[in-house]
């Protein structure tokens, strides 16, 4: 850890409060907000793009043991998984399985 805060304090301040606040606001607002309102649509777009950025970050700047796997293998695995997802009835299970299969094959072929 490069920062001075205790990890548990960080968990509460940077993890618990920033996510719990939306649940509390949701209770306060009750049914007052329409799920299709423009502000909610925009917020959903921002949140979705942010999750995509997290996926890109783990694939391109991977942690721990994944870092020793060549970049080309990581890219092939994520693309192969998505292709399988599209081809096999949009099944998340098939996509994850295919992605992992490509990754393992790549590691065995090109080293990890």
């Amino acid at each position, binding site marked *: 850890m490069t920062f001075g805060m205790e990890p548990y304090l960080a968990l509460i301040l940077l993890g618990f409060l920033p996510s719990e606040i939306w649940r509390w606001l949701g209770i306060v607002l009750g049914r007052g907000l329409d799920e299709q309102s423009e502000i909610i649509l925009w917020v959903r777009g921002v*949140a979705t793009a942010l999750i995509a950025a997290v996926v890109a970050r783990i694939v391109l700047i991977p942690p721990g043991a994944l870092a020793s796997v060549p970049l080309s293998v990581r890219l092939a695995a994520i693309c192969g998984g998505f292709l399988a997802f599209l081809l096999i009835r949009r099944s998340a299970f098939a996509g994850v399985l295919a992605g992992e299969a490509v990754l393992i094959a790549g590691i065995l072929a090109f080293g990890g």
Partner: protein
Amino acid sequence: MSIGPSEHPNRAPGKVFADGMVAALRSVFFYVLLGNYVGIGALAYEFGFSLGWMVLSTLLVWAAPAQVILISTLGTATLVEVALAVTLSSVRFLPMVAALVPMLRREGGRQRDLLLPMHLTAISVWVEGMRLLPARPREQRVAFYNGLGVGLIMAAIIGSAIGFYLAARLPPLFAATLLFFTPLALLMSSARNSRTLLDGLAFGLGLVVGPIVAAQKIGLDLMWTGLIAGTIAYVVHRVREAKAKVTP
């Protein structure tokens, strides 16, 4: 399978809670969460967090994308960036909770009775709750939903403990496959949830814009990516909606 309210006469709250836990065990999400959190547990291990921290993060945060952001950025990003990224990734809870509150509210019910069920709300619990709650009489819904939420959160905790254990003992090849589970699961579940052009476009643009923004090394790259890619996707969505209205 639908059970009419008449088939649940005056059950004790404890029994209703147990019904909710049984519903959690029967849900496909129980097993999806188990697998997903094996990956997140391995991720937490690689980033040097303890198992106790990991379990507590599931109990307190209970949002897989937010936990992945927290685990993977806490050591490197600025504190402001981590807080902003987690905040943005959890905004979805607001409309979800707002849609659920009317279903759980009852005559004479106290506002604070909603705090626990709302804390237990994650995408999986919400989807199953919206599906199963209408069949329950109103006075049983909070206890049932609490059982459902606790059952599914248990799947996540068991999964993360397994991932933690495996990551510490398996050879690097297997550790790498465990770690890769997280981006694959996030990608697939987002793709499956995206029903509109807005969702798909925002995700696709985020994948492209993310690395470009990160390469500029201006900091806050997750937040900027979300704002840039999400706003472009929203504008494209608006323009298409407007066109569709002009030419019906």
